[in-house]
């Protein structure tokens, strides 16, 4: 963890969820800023530990290891599953936390190695939230099925950390976990936090700067994860209904909303709309930035 004073605000940095994370704070005593930074980092790591599918002691691992038997989950996990369930319904099945198994077939390494159609077909029966039985507080997955909360975990962590911080700190706060971020409100000086949106194909090059006083930004898309064969580019957003990458998806979508979970879901859902991503976002009435 690292905390430094930047003229008129604190900047705290830590690593969590395999991303560089930041905490921006309006003026406060240094001990206070350290305390808040510590709290933010601890909460981020708690959520990471609890919901990472890579860790054997995580809740997600326990659910995935259920092998057809019901697994009882705690309150917080249940709320996330309720939320995922809601997202699944709202998106007409496009947003599906069981679609992660398709990664066994798809490896987006920039090469031209597409999986065989049979391989994808064999995995498709394992995809589909409607095949999971979510009967709170118990979830039952068919053998071979898996859930992955990676699509909402980071955004959830941003919202959680922000709400923890504003309970303790009345001045302005911005929480940034690897580009998904949220600001609590106007700064004492009246100024906004300035947030840059990067060109996804040229990392570190901001092409837009946004004055953010309150609200959340979340981005979906990763320009480095794709396959390309016979002139067709396959982005890494997989359509759970086909098992194949969404055709015509933007390289990245950034959405501004009140909460980070909301922004993240809308950004992902826009990607899943492929060529119609922009039109979808317009109908949602949210500020957005789409790169193609």
């Amino acid at each position, binding site marked *: 963890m690292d905390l430094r004073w930047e003229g008129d605000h604190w900047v705290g940095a830590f690593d969590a969820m395999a991303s560089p994370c930041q905490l921006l704070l309006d003026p406060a005593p240094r001990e*206070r800023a350290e305390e808040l930074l510590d709290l933010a980092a601890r909460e981020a790591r708690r959520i990471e530990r609890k919901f990472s599918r890579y860790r054997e002691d995580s809740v997600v691992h326990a659910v995935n290891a259920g092998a057809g038997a019901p697994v009882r989950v705690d309150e917080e996990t249940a709320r996330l599953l309720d939320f995922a369930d809601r997202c699944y319904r709202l998106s007409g099945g496009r947003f599906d936390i069981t679609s992660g198994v398709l990664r066994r077939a798809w490896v987006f390494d920039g090469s031209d190695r597409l999986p065989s159609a049979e391989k994808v077909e064999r995995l498709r029966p394992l995809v589909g939230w409607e095949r999971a039985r979510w009967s709170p507080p118990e979830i039952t997955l068919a053998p071979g099925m898996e859930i992955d909360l990676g699509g909402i975990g980071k955004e959830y962590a941003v919202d959680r950390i922000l709400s923890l911080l504003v309970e303790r700190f*009345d001045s302005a706060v911005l929480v940034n976990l690897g580009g998904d971020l949220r600001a609590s409100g106007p700064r004492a000086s009246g100024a906004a936090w300035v947030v840059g949106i990067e060109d996804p194909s040229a990392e570190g090059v901001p092409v837009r700067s946004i004055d953010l006083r309150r609200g959340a930004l979340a981005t979906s898309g990763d320009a480095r994860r794709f396959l390309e064969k016979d002139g067709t580019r396959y982005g890494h957003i997989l359509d759970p209904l086909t098992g194949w990458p969404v*055709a*015509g998806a933007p390289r990245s979508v950034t959405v501004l909303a009140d909460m980070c979970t*909301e922004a993240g879901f809308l950004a992902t859902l826009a990607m899943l709309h492929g060529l*119609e991503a922009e039109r979808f976002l317009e109908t949602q*009435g*949210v*500020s957005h930035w789409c790169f193609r």
Partner: protein
Amino acid sequence: MQLTEGHVTADRFVAGRAAAGPPGGERPSRAPLRGLSIREGLTAATCALIGMGAGVARAGEVDTAVLLYSEADRVTVLEGVVKGRREIGESGRAVGFRLTVDALTGASANGATPADRVQTFTSPSGRSAYTTPTGRTPLNDTFSDRRIAAGATWEEPLGRLSKGSLGLDVSWERDYSSFAASGVLSRDLFLRNTTLVAGASGSWDRVSPRGGAPESFSWMPPPAPGGGGDDDKRALAGGGTWASGGEEVWIFEDDDEGSEGPAKSKSTFDLLAGITQVIDRATILQVNYTRSRSIGYLADPYKLLSVLPAAGGESGTLAGPVGYRFEKRPDARTKHAVLGEAKHHFRRDMAGVSYRYMWDDWGVVSHTIDVRYLWQRDGPGFWEPHVRLYRQTAADFYARFLVDGEPLPESASADYRLGEMATYTVGLKYGRVLPSGHRAGIRVEYYEQRSEEPAGDPRVPSGSDLYPTVRAGIVQLDYSFDW
């Protein structure tokens, strides 16, 4: 690289890129685009996800407060409260405690009417006495009481959406003790946008005033020898006097258990049903109904009624009361109350309004309106103005006095709390978060209570105030921190 932006703040969206050509590959039929409904549905879902913080970081909180309530020339109450709640692990289980200590000093209207002579009043035993000057509202200033109350609650999740809680409360005063137990069940529905609550509680109270509780409508005993004179008042206020074979023995009340004579008891059973509804992400509506049934000794052992001579008597107008009777109330009371409360969060501020309607089988009907607005300043502080309006009708048996020679009614009380009245409270609170993260606040309020003054009664001295206005000031300091 091409960037397309859309902004809700602009008059029109920056033109989005239209779909270029047919989408590649075969796609299964999809649900149609659902427009804004996605966002609307999402709002409730994200609130449910983030709103109910089951955090590890904030496991508990302790609130402390000191309250000073002071009526002009009357009662002053100093009260300290410490309460806390703490979650046990992440299971949703929680324990809570509450400790209250208060000290009451000063005088309270005893129910008798003003008279054109000095009036002397005694306790049920006749042991302690106090006097009231001519033309003044009789006030019992022998009050000096301390109360200690303690309570504990246990909250237990029952499944993922339901919660049960059990509470126990006890309180002690020199002449009053109470024990109460309660249980509440709550259940969340519809993505936690709706919460239903049902509860029941019972309390068992025991009144044991100095010298025993008086018999209903019994005459106030004459002062014991040596008691009642103005000169003795000060001493008597703090203690009592006991005549024994011509000698006077002074006994201070603190040494007197006050348990001689008959103690009385009452039981109260309450039922509660309520619903809390999240209207939108910023608005919460709550409606509660409570039914409360009390049986047993419901009178106040310190309240009297003046018995005035019948009007038209030769010397009736100025003779003053022929005596005083202790009050009598029905031995059962059923109260109903409906409380509606709405809270709305603005971008930073918060407004709350509540209305309570209460009615009972004693004929008391009351309305309470309470409005507050939390104004969040830039920086760590907030201001909260508060207004409360209250109005009640009198109990059927409320009587300002009894008339000599007339048959006694079934029940009668001159306790101003059962009379017609209107009160208002205005106040302002300032609170802030300290650099330590602890929260501190100060609240200052003014309270006034008025009763409609009926036409002057010839049996009480003209110019005396039968329904005096009560004014009070309230100052409260509070301090909270995480536990």
